């Protein structure tokens, strides 16, 4: 038999009614009017779902991708945590010195090696009517002998007129009367444990003697300051007691001058007037400026800031390479499927959104355990190192932004592989 054209049903060229012949579905059942979600939502949701189904299908690959993101996440959290903990602790002593304004020698770069300024500047500052009091502050390091095992360690001494009420350390106020007595001092309860279990001993036996420098001093109470780079522990005492330990120090040369303003005085205006009033051998700073000055030293004059920024960046780069590799090989091994999708009418945009969705799913799946693990590590490492490591929402958010960006870039890079999916090669 030769080709006899059969009679063929004529129909409209495009959409034909769907015939449910073999399904047993009642032919009369018209499709319900479609209650529609917005197409925009579908344009984002459908590629996301496709990406998730693809990721989910290969557990091992998914697990290694999540591990990569988690690794980057923990690394960045630890780096940022250490960084801010170190800077916080670097300025612990100055942050605890609660006065309004400070005078410092202009050549002093960091508080643990101060240049000295003439004591007379304190009296000169009093010339300003809004200044209520100005007291000299003496800083020095001396040897502390551990009251329990006798080991020695340098401790930071802070001596000033404790009665003046100019500089208020946390916990100092109730000790003012006690500290008037000769050879007494207040110990920083947050000092490192190498100084001995001072708070416990104090609670058990009451005030007791400790050797500081060559002198027996009485620990009369506790203040709260915290260790810093320059000092593992601190003690606060009156100016007189300070000079008893540091006999060679001249009273006329001081390390800082702390100034208290009258209630209601404008601090910034007072700073400006003091600058005009005093000679060029002093620098006038409000307390936040003093803290910022100290922090600036650690950030710029030491490689600490760079080290942590570099560490974070490396974590992100490694994480990005891992995510990129996973996405890339995912696309490469599914090229035929992607080409098929293009052939049946999926746009490039849809497939790009699917790849990007996969990247962002990995960001979320890696970040959440990363956040949990980092919070745990902050706790453990913080206890071990006495660094103030604390998870806070703003850091969590910024790390999430970094991880999200990292995965996004990896997705954008991997996306280029989609070009190799050519629907014309499918036949």
């Amino acid at each position, binding site marked *: 038999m030769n080709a006899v*054209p059969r009679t*063929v049903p004529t129909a409209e060229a495009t959409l034909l009614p*769907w015939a449910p012949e073999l*399904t047993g579905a009642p032919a009369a059942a018209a499709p*319900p009017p479609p209650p529609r979600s917005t197409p925009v939502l579908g344009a984002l949701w459908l590629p996301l779902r496709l990406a998730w189904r693809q990721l989910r299908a290969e557990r091992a690959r998914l697990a290694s991708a999540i591990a990569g993101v988690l690794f980057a996440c923990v690394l960045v959290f630890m780096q940022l945590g250490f960084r801010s903990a170190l800077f916080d602790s670097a300025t612990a002593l100055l942050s605890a010195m609660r006065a309004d304004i400070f005078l410092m020698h202009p050549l002093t770069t960091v508080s643990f090696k101060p240049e000295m300024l003439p004591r007379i500047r304190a009296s000169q500052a009093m010339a300003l009517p809004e200044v209520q009091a100005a007291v000299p502050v003496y800083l020095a390091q001396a040897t502390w002998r551990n009251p329990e095992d006798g080991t020695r360690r340098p401790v930071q001494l802070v001596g000033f007129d404790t009665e003046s009420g100019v500089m208020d350390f946390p916990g100092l106020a109730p000790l003012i009367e006690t500290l008037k007595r000769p050879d007494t001092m207040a110990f920083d309860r947050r000092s490192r444990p190498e100084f001995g279990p001072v708070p416990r001993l104090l609670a058990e036996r009451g005030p007791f003697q400790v050797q500081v420098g060559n002198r027996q001093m009485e620990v009369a109470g506790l203040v709260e300051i915290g260790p810093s780079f320059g000092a593992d522990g601190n003690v606060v005492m009156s100016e007189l007691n300070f000079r008893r330990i540091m006999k060679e120090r001249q009273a006329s040369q001081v390390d800082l001058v702390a100034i208290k303003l009258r209630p209601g005085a404008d601090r910034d205006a007072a700073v400006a007037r003091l600058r005009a009033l005093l000679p060029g051998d002093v620098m006038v700073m409000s307390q936040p400026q003093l803290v910022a000055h100290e922090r600036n030293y650690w950030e710029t004059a030491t490689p600490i800031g760079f080290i942590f920024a570099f560490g974070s960046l490396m974590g992100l780069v490694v994480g990005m390479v891992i995510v990129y590799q996973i996405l890339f090989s995912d696309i490469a091994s599914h090229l035929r499927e992607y080409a*098929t999708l293009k052939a*049946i009418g999926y746009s490039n945009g849809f497939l790009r959104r699917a790849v990007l969705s996969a990247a962002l799913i990995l960001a979320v799946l890696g970040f959440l355990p990363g956040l949990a693990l980092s919070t745990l590590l902050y706790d453990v490492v913080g206890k071990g190192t006495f660094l103030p490591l604390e998870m806070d929402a703003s850091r969590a958010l910024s790390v999430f932004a970094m991880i999200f960006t990292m995965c996004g870039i990896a997705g954008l890079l991997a996306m280029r592989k989609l070009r190799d999916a050519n629907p014309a090669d499918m*036949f």
Partner: protein
Amino acid sequence: MATPPVALRGVTYAYGTGDLARPVLRDVDLSVAPGEVVLLTGPSGSGKTTLLTLIGALRALQQGSATVLGQELAGASERERTALRRRIGFIFQQHNLLGFLTARQNVAMALELDPATTERQRLARAGEMLAAVGLAEKCESRPDQLSGGQRQRVAVARALAGQPGLILADEPTAALDRQSGGDVVRLLRDLARRRGVPILMVTHDPRILDIADRIVAMEDGRILPANEANAVRAP
């Protein structure tokens, strides 16, 4: 009568450019009537696949004119071609199903392109299509749990699910044994015919020539006159 689903006039195509240009199609005229089943045969390298990719808007037309389902392909943009592809059902040599989706989800992929459907409608329709190809029990199976013939039947269901106006198939039986190959193309032909959908199918397989309304033979980039084409079928 309105323009037929496929109407090619003077289509010429070459791979490569300049001196390296190798003509593969020369002045091809071809039309497919509504509901017609056309088989395209010819020796290897004669340009059948190339012609199919042009009609399927998978490649840009170089010369001549091609109207497919009302869309002129000469000078059509990528966007227009993508939109046209959604109205065509493709069946490839390999099934090309997505391995991480079930049979039903694979078929539903062809429906997700239509924003006017809900997820429930899509899955219901996909289930009906799978029932229509005799795979009602395999809806939730993944492709690697199916036989070759079953996979190709899922591909048929996917191609038909979107209510295409045209089916293009390139050697759909090549990867199948004789029995299941024959079953699949007959199933395809029956389902398409009931819906009045025309089919253009490239095949080397002499056992399935009988499904055709018309056989078109190609050689060296040209379409042979009708009597020579029928000679292919006689022996």
